């Protein structure tokens, strides 16, 4: 069987990060606007229209593509901001838009028939019927799979949905909840990644020094306490440490980062078209390190060489790594 050479889809929260990603070997860079139309609507992050135009020109000059994430769900009755985001991506010659909301996908398909459509992980489409519906009805050409499938399940799914391409996360932060449907952040702060583009918005986060370490608080709720020198994680409720049945533990998920570097041969054999690196909120140093590692990894597999030994421990959340649902080692 001939292997598909997967595209490396890399994050960029700023023009400088876009440049770092392209120079480190990204095939595609995904970005968002400076507003609530994307799921990383963080302070000081993201692209103005002018920066996007310049970023696309830089990427195209270097043989890379730019994908624009417009992957939050428009507020009922006021879809204009999201429509404008799609119109501008088409006008600025983005190579694709990454969308989650079915109404916005319908808008993009009708208004910009030549614009390539990718289905965001936020749409949580994980079975052939769902994916085929988006493809047949709206012409979606790629689906970003939720992080719930094993490699075997992905390998079985691919032949059933062709010619739709699959994109899977290979590195970075993990969501343990049904993607696009998690309300934990809303419960505590009134804002969610789905509607506002922010999970545990920074405005609601406080770190408080105590005698025994540092307490992290979200909207006044204490969600974790780290001892002096103990590795920390993001201040999200799903990664909080809580007391249940008299025992303090990470009830949902421990602070850890997905790392599938060692699994690249299996994912390539499973027929995946694109490998996605999470982390538009991370700095240029993260982008450069992870993209270089995965560039080297993909190139090695395609050339039949052994995987290079790349140490990414220092940039992982909580200083820990997992292969997540791809292996389901906990079963």
């Amino acid at each position: 069987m001939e292997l598909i050479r997967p595209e490396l889809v890399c994050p960029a929260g700023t023009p400088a990060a876009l440049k770092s990603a392209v120079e480190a070997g990204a095939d595609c860079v995904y970005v968002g606007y400076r507003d609530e139309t994307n799921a990383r609507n963080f302070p000081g992050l993201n692209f103005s229209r002018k920066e996007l135009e310049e970023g696309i020109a830089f990427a195209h000059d270097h043989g890379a593509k730019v994908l624009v994430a417009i992957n939050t769900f428009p507020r009922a009755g006021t879809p204009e901001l999201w429509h404008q985001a799609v119109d501008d991506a088409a006008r600025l010659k983005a190579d694709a838009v990454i969308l989650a909301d079915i109404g916005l996908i319908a808008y993009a398909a009708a208004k910009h028939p030549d614009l390539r459509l990718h289905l965001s992980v936020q749409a949580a489409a994980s079975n052939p019927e769902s994916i085929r519906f988006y493809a047949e009805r709206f012409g979606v050409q790629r689906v970003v799979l939720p992080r719930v499938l094993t490699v075997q399940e992905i390998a079985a799914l691919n032949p059933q949905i062709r010619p739709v391409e699959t994109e899977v996360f290979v590195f970075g932060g993990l969501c343990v909840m049904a993607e696009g449907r998690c309300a934990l952040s809303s419960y505590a702060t009134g804002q969610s990644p789905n509607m506002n583009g922010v999970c545990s918005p920074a405005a609601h986060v406080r770190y408080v020094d105590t005698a025994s370490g540092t307490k992290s608080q979200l909207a006044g709720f204490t969600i974790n306490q780290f001892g002096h020198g103990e590795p920390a994680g993001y201040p999200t409720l799903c990664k909080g440490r809580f007391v249940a049945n008299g025992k303090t533990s990470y009830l949902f998920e421990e602070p850890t980062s997905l790392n599938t570097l060692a699994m690249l041969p299996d994912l390539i054999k499973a027929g995946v078209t694109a490998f996605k690196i999470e982390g538009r909120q991370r700095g240029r140093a993260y982008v450069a390190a992870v993209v270089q590692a995965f560039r080297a990894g993909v190139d090695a597999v395609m050339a039949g060489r052994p995987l290079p030994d790349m140490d990414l421990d220092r940039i992982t959340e909580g200083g820990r790594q997992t292969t997540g649902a791809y292996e389901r080692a906990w079963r």
Partner: protein
Amino acid sequence: MTEAQYRSGAKPMTPPFSPVLLLGLALKPLRPAVLQPVFDAMLRVVRKRHPDILERMEPFQDKVVCVDPVDLPFVLLLEPNMAEPRLTVRRAVDPDESHATIRGPLETLIALAEGKVDGDALFFSRQLVIEGDTEVVVALRNAIDGAGIDLIADLTSMLGPLANPARRVADATIETMSHLRANVETLRQALIAPAMAGAAARDARLAELEAEVKALRKANRRGHA
């Protein structure tokens, strides 16, 4: 920083033993006002070469961020006002004077400003401490990371025809710092060697005692059986 720490002048994060720490001790007698023109010039250059930093900080114009290099006897107060930004050197600040604090060793803060290290990774590994308004800290981190700052190139750019010689001096200084760092590390190892030897002896004795306790417990259980 707590009120008591503020009053004592002690830093709430232990600085690493480094050339910067030694330099900081040497600079202690210096009045912050003497250094202020350096930071005024630095801000002018950054403002000219990286206007996007203030643009990204626009929603936070009225905030004050304290940048605390824990190995130096000074702190910096940044006011990212679009029209009149300020970077002020101070000996210390009252907790009420700033909305947020970013604290870490100077070399870590410089590496962060130049995008050579990832801010989240530094936070995860606790090499960077943030206090107060997290939103303004995240915005500043993103704005600076996105600007592509190169401190030496930025600072030497204001010297006109002297930029190239200044760059060579800066490169030589960095190399000297690298040698100094190695020497200081040797010094640190020498200073802590007796304490480490004592700790190793105590660890070994503790392991022996644990083994003895284990054996006694086992014997005791057998006696009761």
